[in-house]
């Protein structure tokens, strides 16, 4: 057999029917993650057609988007933003019961952002095909799984048949070498990559991130990188599994145990692109050249470093973006006053993200004019963080410590800013109005977010890191 990429290997292993000129491939799906927003119409379709969920054991549901991040009141009532949001969550509870799907719901120790709990439970495993009605399904590619977002019609397809009709995407290798400097995180790396290849640079492709700088990343950092593949237009990102991956998964509730574990690891070791495999496109990135980065416009490709002047608008769209953001070309973004800092989302809400921000905030205060929301990615992360006392660090600094969920990343649950407010956000999208009508979003790492919270303006974390070291 000729040399194959990791994408080829996973693709070939899941072909129920190969593609022909007339029909796409029928691809078998190993794990289907389900949440409340993109599933109700699919369950309705199944009900109307008299269909069952073909493989309930390959289906895992939770709610995260419409859920409040404030705790229930004294009567146990949760403060939903609207009655419709509450009924959407109730609908998923009812659908899960009716169709026999496992739900990590209220009261479960593992509820949380769908892309956080899959890995946390060990449900996400190398070599799998994973889908969810959510574009950030690309996150799971960090484990060497082919994972991509789908629409609600396709959610119905997978529920009913465990299969999807797909044309094979092209492959794009992004090779990252070099050692990143102080204060440069996985978030800065992926922002730099999107800024380099553009928001449509990955359209039609699956990105495989490779090279020494990728191998050096922890699993949580790899998830941050793969998570934002969609922001470059790619449906999926992939990183070949290695010892770091196996160490992360070992002992997790849904990971194989005992002899099955050894067999699984042996199989997973073969999941890498062959040395002479050819990619449709290749891009090289030098991580040593990356500095702490932020977005300054209204799409995730408008990226600059904190210390560099904001680039001049190249066209009418960019001019409009700068006006919306009230940002001036030629001046650095650092120093711009901040109203809200949001630490959370499937990009950056894991324990290491919370620790990184807490390390900067320990013994310091969030600036008086700034509101800071800290929203852990899952119930598990919340518990783990509280065990370490991170919640005390955040609260003592003046930040709000919230319940797990998507929260302000997309503001579906009512966690939004006011028109004109500027949010430094560790999430993934800075679209106009994403965090509330008229709200201006600056995407950044947890370190930049914490530094900005303390300074009251967009700030370079390196100043604080140097102080801490001294």
């Amino acid at each position, binding site marked *: 057999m000729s040399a194959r990429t990791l994408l080829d290997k996973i693709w070939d292993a899941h072909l*129920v*029917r190969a593609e022909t000129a*007339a029909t*796409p491939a*029928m691809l*078998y799906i190993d794990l289907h993650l389900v949440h409340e*927003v*993109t599933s*109700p*119409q699919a369950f*309705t379709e199944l009900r109307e*057609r008299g*269909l069952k969920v*073909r493989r309930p054991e390959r289906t895992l549901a939770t709610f995260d*988007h*419409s859920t409040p991040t404030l705790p229930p009141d004294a009567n146990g009532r949760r403060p939903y933003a*609207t009655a*419709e*949001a509450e*009924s*959407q969550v109730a*609908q998923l509870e009812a659908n899960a019961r009716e169709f026999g799907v496992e739900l990590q719901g209220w009261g479960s120790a593992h509820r949380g952002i769908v892309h956080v709990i899959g890995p946390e439970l060990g449900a996400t495993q190398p070599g799998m095909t994973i889908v969810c*009605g*959510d*574009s950030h399904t690309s996150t799971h590619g960090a484990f060497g799984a082919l994972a991509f*977002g*789908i*629409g*609600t*019609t*396709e959610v*119905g*397809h997978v529920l*009913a*048949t*465990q*299969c999807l*009709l797909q*044309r094979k*995407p092209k492959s794009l290798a992004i090779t990252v070498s070099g050692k990143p400097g102080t204060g440069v995180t996985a978030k800065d790396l992926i922002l730099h990559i999107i800024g380099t290849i553009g*928001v*449509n640079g990955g*359209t*039609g492709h699956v990105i495989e991130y490779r090279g020494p700088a990728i191998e050096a990343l922890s699993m949580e950092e790899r998830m941050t990188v793969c998570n934002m593949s969609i922001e470059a*237009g790619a*449906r999926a990102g992939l990183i070949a599994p290695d010892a770091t991956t196996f160490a992360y998964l070992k002992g997790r509730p849904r990971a194989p145990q005992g002899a099955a574990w050894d067999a699984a690891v042996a199989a997973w070791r073969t999941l890498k692109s062959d040395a002479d495999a050819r990619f449709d496109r290749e891009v090289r990135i030098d991580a040593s050249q990356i500095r702490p980065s932020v977005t300054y416009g209204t*799409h995730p490709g408008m990226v600059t470093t904190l210390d560099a002047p904001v680039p001049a608008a190249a*066209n009418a*769209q960019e001019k409009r973006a700068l006006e919306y953001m009230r940002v001036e070309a030629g001046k650095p973004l650092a120093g711009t006053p901040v109203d809200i800092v949001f630490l959370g989302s499937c990009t950056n809400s894991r324990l290491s993200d919370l620790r990184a921000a807490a390390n900067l905030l320990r013994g310091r205060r969030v600036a008086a004019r700034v509101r800071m929301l800290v929203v852990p990615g899952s119930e598990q992360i919340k518990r783990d963080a509280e065990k370490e006392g991170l919640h005390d660090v955040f609260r003592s600094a003046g930040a709000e410590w919230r319940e797990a969920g998507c929260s302000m990343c*997309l*503001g*579906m649950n009512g966690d939004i800013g006011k*028109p004109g407010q500027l949010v430094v956000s560790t999430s993934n*999208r800075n*679209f*106009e*109005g*994403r965090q509330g*009508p*008229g709200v201006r979003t600056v995407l950044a790492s947890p370190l930049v977010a914490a530094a900005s919270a303390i300074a009251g303006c967009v700030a370079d974390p390196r100043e604080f890191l140097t102080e801490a070291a001294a």
Partner: protein
Amino acid sequence: MKPLTQIHSRTAVLAHENIDTDRIIPARFLTTTQRSGLGRALFHDWRYRADGSPDPDFALNRPAAAGCEILVGGRNFGCGSSREHAPWALLDYGFRAVLSSEIADIFRGNALKNGLLAVVLSEAEHRWLLEHPGIELTIDVAGGFIELPDGGRFTFELEPFARHCLLSGVDQLGFLLQHAADITRFEEARKAA
């Protein structure tokens, strides 16, 4: 789904690049559990001013755009979230086709599965359409071409299976269910391995 063979309409143009699905339908409208009635939320924060009144400067609020079934959008249309509410909202509003020089993968797949024709044209053809808002077009799905008022044609490619489904008004789930035996065979072969 009704078969979609031909669309004859004037165009409405939104030239902005990277029109994301949050722009097409903001997240706060996604708490619905239905597919219907989302047209009211289409481009909501562009269409309406803060006081709730329609913004007369927004292209779709101009009288010339009334009844247009073809939307010409700027490059990289439909990027961002996978929400199928975006094509549902476009369809409910009255659009039947979206044309651009580049359309984001997930949006394009979602659109075609709902009978919303999503067509990618060359940059030159796209630029010409952006510069001629309100022009009458006839889109022929089977022939894979767009006819201009002067008889000129832009040809386009469509994934053959998606085209088949559009033309015959069938959905893809039926095809998958027909191959249930293949799925069972695959599952059993794996168990045996």
